[in-house]
């Protein structure tokens, strides 16, 4: 994801005239890498989504997506991603602000960043099992949470465990970029705290906030191991449906249907990204 980076560049005037003609060579490793490991697999997935199990081309995999089960998996993915990314983004941003307003070289800040770095990557089976042991309906040590298996809230709580630290990490640089002088200027002009945030702080942070929220959304969309360990008996989200289409040993496996589901996820990401760019353009209007 380059969301955080793209928020910073804005519209810088190109220096086309003075750029040496070989400068593009520097982008070759990047383009080659994304080509082989992003564009090529995406192309293969979409290509295979139109292939039949006995060879030849077919739309059956795509039309096969129009069932209640598949629809509910896509709705489930959307619900879980929106809830966990919005809750994670808001709480993470508040925490990032709290950390940023402390001593920039202080022990607390360093501890906090180090811990966030670890926790943002702490997902999967271990995390699900830790929650199960702590607040599971029968095995909870802290308390027995009966809502634990309610989708999407039970699993959203678990996802927030890594979403909040991730948000804190990616959003902290944006908050650090807020200069104290801007606040002083607002106060000198008689602005209240609310007016400062409404007219200065929020517009400045909005692009970074949206970008970070999108990152969390994509993070939640692709997560599989955590929700599979939390509950594997129903395919609540699309990655679980893909898993069923690949591993079912009772006769329901259909690899190309899995490709079609994956293609559906790509479409979902494209829609969200497009929405993000529209919002981003609006939010970052002042930068131009």
């Amino acid at each position, binding site marked *: 994801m380059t969301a955080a980076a793209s928020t910073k560049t804005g519209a810088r005037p190109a220096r086309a005239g003075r750029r040496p003609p070989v400068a593009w060579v520097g982008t070759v490793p990047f383009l080659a890498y994304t080509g082989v490991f992003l564009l090529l697999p995406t192309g293969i997935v979409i290509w295979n989504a139109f292939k039949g199990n006995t060879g030849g081309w077919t739309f059956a995999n795509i039309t096969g997506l129009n069932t209640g089960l598949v629809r509910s998996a896509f709705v489930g993915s959307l619900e879980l991603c929106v809830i966990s990314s919005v809750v994670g983004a808001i709480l993470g941003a508040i925490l990032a602000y709290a950390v940023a307003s402390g001593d920039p070289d202080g022990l607390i800040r360093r501890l906090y960043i180090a811990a966030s770095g670890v926790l943002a990557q702490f997902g999967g089976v271990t995390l699900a099992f830790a929650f199960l042991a702590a607040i*599971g309906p*029968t*095995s909870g040590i802290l308390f027995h949470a009966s809502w634990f298996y309610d989708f999407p809230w039970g699993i959203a709580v678990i996802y927030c465990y890594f979403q909040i630290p991730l948000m804190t990490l990616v959003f902290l640089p944006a908050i650090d970029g807020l200069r104290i002088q801007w606040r002083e200027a607002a106060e000198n002009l008689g602005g209240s705290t609310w007016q400062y945030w409404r007219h200065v702080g929020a517009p400045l942070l909005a692009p970074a906030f949206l970008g970070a929220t999108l990152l969390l959304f994509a993070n939640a969309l692709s997560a599989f191991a955590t929700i599979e360990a939390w*509950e594997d*008996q129903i*395919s609540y989200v699309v990655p679980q449906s893909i898993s*069923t289409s690949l591993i079912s040993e*009772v*006769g329901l496996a259909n690899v190309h249907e899995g490709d079609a589901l994956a293609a559906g996820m790509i479409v979902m990401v494209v829609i969200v990204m497009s929405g993000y760019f529209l919002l981003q353009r609006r939010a970052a209007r002042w930068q131009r």
Partner: protein
Amino acid sequence: MSALVKAAKSEGTLNVIALPNDWANYGTIIKDFTAKYGIKVNSIAPSDSSAQEVTQIEQKKGTSLAADVLDVGGSVATASTSLFAPYKVATWASIPAGLKDPSGLYFGDYGGYMSVGYNSAKFGTITSLSQLLGSKFKSAVALNGNPTEANAALNGVMMANLAEGGTASSIADGVNFFHKLKAAGNYVPVQATPATIKAGTTPVVFNWDYLNTAAVVGQSASTWKVYIPSNATLGGFYFQAINKDAPHPAAARLWEEFLFSQAAVGGQNLWLEGGARPSEQAAMTSNGSINKTAAAALPPVMGTPIFLTQAQATAAATYLAANWAKAIS
């Protein structure tokens, strides 16, 4: 046989796939095979499903990494015969006719009965499945996997179906049983493993009896009991098959000979020691080669065993695909 041993030894390695060490005594079987023939066993992806085994031999075809032998459920075995090499082990005649493909493409290796494993100190003695709907079993009952994916879980639902008065041709009553279980708050939607049993998350488990033994789930044999309903005695077998493009074809065949050997340290008795019922059990009981202690330790089976036909299993899977998620959400 000695030529086969020689050829297998010169290959030196055998690739097996989807064989967990704690499943039907496979950990010991692999160790004993290596000890006997000096052939290294490379165990690939122990927790894969039958469908993934087939995908693996297709994807790794022509490389030395492909699995040589498969241990798969009935649906996958019958659907994938084009990938198998026919082979008949020396004890072929001892395998019941219903458990083998006449040309030797796949053949039944071991099986068991669907059962309920539970802690009798906590729940008392279970004598019928309908007891599980009672308030004593709050957040307690779990399956081994998702029934639209895993054979063992599908058969767990089918066992409930039979106990509720359904027939093997329709699994609807079983799905309804789990719907009631969920409504009563007794259903735990987590895949039961020895770890979840130890943690107390899944204290009552539907699983094959050989995966539900006290030894496998790591519980005390004095309190962990295995119940097989007499009105729903549902059996199931797994099948061996040899990859026709096996990178180690001789080792693959020697492995099958070892698995179907009736010797004291042969696959059939080793499976039995792990709580599974080997396919040659009847023949071995009459010729006296069976390990009698291990046979006596199997959980008692009272009812008339039922085995799903391929058509019944497919009908059940189709029904589950459409109705399972609705029933338990």
